[in-house]
């Protein structure tokens, strides 16, 4: 399996999914023009990765500055996918990072945290 690397643009995040270290990172602003098109390879990669993940710990680091409502749904779908995998015994930790005094990102992190059941979901101030 290959790593998934997508460079950041003004309106789309940097994606750095490394299947050898099991660290998956999303960083930046998330409001791409065509959310469906942008996130399709991300979901495809994640599905393949979670299928082959065994007992290694997978860490998902998110450092998001802004996301629009279409990306909010895409993130929910990502967390649902990870949550299902965690329910099936996979060891997955999500680190939702927010900058000091950024209530928007902190609040939305808390809301995602409320909506997952099996994942370890940490809120971390940076």
């Amino acid at each position, binding site marked *: 399996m290959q790593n998934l690397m997508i460079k950041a643009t*003004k*309106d789309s995040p940097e994606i750095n999914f490394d299947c050898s270290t099991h660290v998956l990172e999303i960083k930046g602003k998330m*409001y791409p*023009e065509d*959310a469906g098109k942008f996130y399709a390879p991300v979901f495809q990669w994640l599905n393949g990765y979670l299928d082959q993940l065994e007992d290694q710990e997978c860490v998902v680091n998110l450092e998001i500055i*802004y996301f*629009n*409502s*279409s990306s*909010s*749904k895409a993130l*929910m779908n990502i967390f*649902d996918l990870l949550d299902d995998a965690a329910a099936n015994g996979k060891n997955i930790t999500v680190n939702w990072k927010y*900058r*000091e*005094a*950024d*209530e*928007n*990102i902190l609040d939305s992190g808390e*809301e995602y945290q409320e*909506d997952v059941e099996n994942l370890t979901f940490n809120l971390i101030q940076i």
Partner: protein
Amino acid sequence: MKINLFKLKKQLGEQGISFCYSGPVSKDLMNEISEVFEQKMKMEDVNRTTVGKVFSMIVEQIENIMKYSDEIITDATLQEELRVGIIVIGRCEDDMFFVMTGNKIHNHKVDKMQKKLTTIHQMNQIELKQYYKQQRRKEPDKDSKGAGLGFIELARRASCPIEFDFEKINDTMSFFTITTKFKEASKCKI
């Protein structure tokens, strides 16, 4: 026709309007408008949470024009299109940031939109949060071009209920206006 731009600028300034655009909207234009405002607010020491809220209001409202305006410019092959709207951003007397956008829509869409917006308008923040979470897990409506969360997102970001209006233009079209406001929570520097 004689237009006095200085007079127009003065009139806009008197109403607290710091940005005004009327015409076709593209994704690149939206990115530039939202970013220039982000930069302006940062330069004015507006706190990070407020910058995020106003940025979000600008993005969601311009996206709404790009997706749903029924005033459309297209080329002969119909391959490309631009949707037309009006965007006004400013700060009113009580120091609230406001974002107003407007565009034409077909009359037959007015009822459904009005219902949707009225439902959202009547909800408090706790109800809006529940509704948002519920809709986020659902498949969007057939006629939605995004996640179907834009108006709920706006209502949650704004610090007072969103204002909206439909003005009938003729037998086929109406003009839709939506206004969101946000009051800076605290003046602390970041």
